[in-house]
């Protein structure tokens, strides 16, 4: 089977599992357009942070300062939008994050400071510096304070014409997916609902985020520049001997990293909230790091991770029965995977999948309501679980976090 067909098949089975799960638990919200739309909206900042981490770590610089860079992005995003309109907000957020990326580069690349130490410092500094800036800019304004900005204008959204009812030169085109969603047909309507959520009312910035995935894959794996950048993450000494300007590539990596994390922060302000609030990143920079690890330092993997975490995040805002339906769906999916593993005669995986799947099934049967506070911990639990279960199969860049100085032996 070719790859695209396989992915489509897996996606189809996924939707079928969701449909069955919500049919059993008697809810319709799991495949409603709202849920899919929210999942997409919540996945993008995580995706951007994760892609940011990808550029940095592929160049060999560990970046746990993503959170601080994202915080800078939220503040500068709001400030730019407040002063000059939403698209300048996007630009400001990007540059604000990149500035902190530059700082991280200065510490780790030029001064050879331990990457984690620098990252921790950036997270402390990001929070403090943004609050300081708020106190001198937003605080005197009406609606603003030390911890939040006045409401700012957000970036607009778009719907796909003919399929999700987008406007075409002022004419409102038909809404195929929405129509399907309303029909109440088993599976077909559920698929329509999910697609309606993905293609209707999508922010322009979401499109930017999604386009960045193939763009990054192309840039890093199909261009000479990308090869040079990755070689700095795998073996900077060899790269140096081949004439690559390692220090410059590392700087590119961390600055793009900061820029993308900042873009993720700007997204939170300009698409989700319409306002800057202190602490609004709520650890999403770290979840982005989790998505990066989950995705095995590959763009498509980061995208998958971001969607898993984004979907988990979106469940918090739905009712408890939706969460239960989702847990059942996970249980069914895992048990199906276990059955497939038995069919493939890989007994260890079958036992693992079956065991975890059974665990989810028991959880579903016993627990009536999953508390929101625990739901918030799911991305972190999944990351830990993936790391613990599959650390042999994960491969980070070989010289990620290594100290490197020009002209010195390893």
């Amino acid at each position, binding site marked *: 089977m070719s790859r695209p067909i396989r992915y489509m098949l897996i996606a189809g089975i996924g939707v079928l599992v969701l449909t069955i799960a919500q049919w059993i638990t008697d809810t319709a919200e799991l495949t409603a357009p709202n849920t899919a739309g929210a999942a997409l909206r919540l996945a993008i900042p995580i995706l951007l942070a994760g892609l940011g981490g990808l550029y940095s770590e592929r160049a060999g610089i560990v970046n*746990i300062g993503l959170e601080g860079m994202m915080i800078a992005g939220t503040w500068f995003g709001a400030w730019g939008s407040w002063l000059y309109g939403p698209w300048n907000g996007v630009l400001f957020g990007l540059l604000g994050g990149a500035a902190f990326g530059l*700082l991280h580069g200065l*510490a780790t690349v030029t*001064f*050879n*400071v*331990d990457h*984690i*130490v*620098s990252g*921790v*410092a*950036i*997270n*402390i*500094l*990001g*929070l*403090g*510096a943004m*609050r*300081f800036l708020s*106190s*001198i800019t937003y605080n005197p304004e009406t609606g603003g304070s*030390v911890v939040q900005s006045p409401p700012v204008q957000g970036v607009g959204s778009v719907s796909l014409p003919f399929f999700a009812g987008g406007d075409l030169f002022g004419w409102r085109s038909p809404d195929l997916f929405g129509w399907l969603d309303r029909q109440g047909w088993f599976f077909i309507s559920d698929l329509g609902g999910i697609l309606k959520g993905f293609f209707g009312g999508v922010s322009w910035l979401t499109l930017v985020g999604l386009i960045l995935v193939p763009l990054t894959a192309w840039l890093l794996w199909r261009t000479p520049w990308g090869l040079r950048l990755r070689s700095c993450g795998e073996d900077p000494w060899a790269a140096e001997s081949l004439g690559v300007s390692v220090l410059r590539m590392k700087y590119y990596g961390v600055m793009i990293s900061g820029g993308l994390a900042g873009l993720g922060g700007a997204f939170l302000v300009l698409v989700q909230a319409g306002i800057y609030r202190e602490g609004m990143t709520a*650890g999403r920079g*770290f979840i982005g*790091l*989790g998505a990066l*690890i989950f995705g095995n330092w590959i763009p498509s993997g980061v995208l998958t991770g971001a969607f898993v975490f984004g979907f988990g995040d979106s469940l918090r805002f739905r009712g408890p029965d939706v969460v239960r339906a989702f847990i059942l769906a996970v249980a069914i999916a895992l048990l199906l995977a276990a059955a497939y593993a038995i069919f493939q005669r890989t007994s260890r995986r079958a036992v693992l999948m079956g065991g975890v799947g059974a665990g989810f099934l028991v959880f579903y049967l016993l627990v009536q309501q999953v*508390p929101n*506070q*625990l739901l*918030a*911990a799911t991305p*972190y*639990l999944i*990351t*830990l679980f993936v*790391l*613990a*279960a599959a*650390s*042999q199969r994960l491969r980070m860049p070989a010289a990620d976090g290594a100290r490197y100085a020009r002209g010195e032996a390893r």
Partner: protein
Amino acid sequence: MNRSSRLLTSFVAPLLAIIISFAIASAVLLLVDIDPLGAYGEMWAFGTTTESLISMINRAIPLFVSALAVAVGFKMGLFNIGVEGAYLLTALIAGYLAALIALPSVLHVFAILLIAALIGGVWNGLAGWLKVKRGVHEVISTIMLNFIAFSLNAWLFLNYLKADIGGLTTATALIPESGWIPSLNFALGWFGVEPRAGTELHGFLVIAIFLGVFYHFLVNRSRFGYDLRASGINPSAAHASGVNPKRMIVTTMVISGSIAGLVGMSTLLGFSHRYVQDFPSGLGFAGIAVALLGRNNPVGMAFGAVLFGFLERSSIILDLKDVPREIVTIFQGVIVLAVVIVYEVVSRYAQRRAIAAAAQATADLEVAVMA
């Protein structure tokens, strides 16, 4: 490294970092049209009153303990970012349990401290276990465990452990007086210091000093400490000389976590006497900064903790003088970066000087042989 260059790196580096941080903070203040010297003057005048100095020590205590927890890991090349989650989770559970048990006064306190150390040790030991058994890097696992601890904390607190105490405050039940750590104000009296009513020097100071001494002996004077430092400097050499690296990792994380569990105890047993909704947070992250500033040396970390405590206390006055007090957070963030950068530069300079001296000595020797 010889004596003079060690002196250079251990004293000059932090001092230089503090000066640089002051310069940057001043530049930031100048940018927004605030006179930095005036602001520092206000901070100094307010920060050196008796009440402020006591508050400074009270703030420094948990920071110092947190720094000790981080430093134990640092000594063997383990980065424990999980102090934050460990101490918050521990403070909640220990605070809840402390209100349940009834014991004679001193025993009660030690029972709580033991429970706290146990919970913290298990929680951070988990990261050690994950590293040894599953190869998960401790930085990632402790970051994730932090957030899991925050969630667990919120869930347990709001659903099970909070007490029905009425009013607007959400808190666990009050710990009986036998579980309180008395203040040290009586000792201040010996020195003729009479603080205003309501100002109390936390009694946990004694335990913190004991922990500092314990840390010094553990790391520098014990067999375990030798193995610890050896593993930190050269893991394969330590392994070859019979150190079990896996056991060292787990033990170190457990010790680090046990100390982390005690971070919140100063406030819990000496001040609030119950876990409250706005229990001080951020001490775990600040502890990393203090450990870096003090270069894992107990005396250095004590100085760092006192500096941070002073900055936090004295910044309160800035609000009244229309100076954004967040300048102090910027200062703290800058100082972490500055201290590691300066240390890197200074030690590179010292190294180069040592190499030059060695080269000179060789050259001299050659001249002598030729003659």
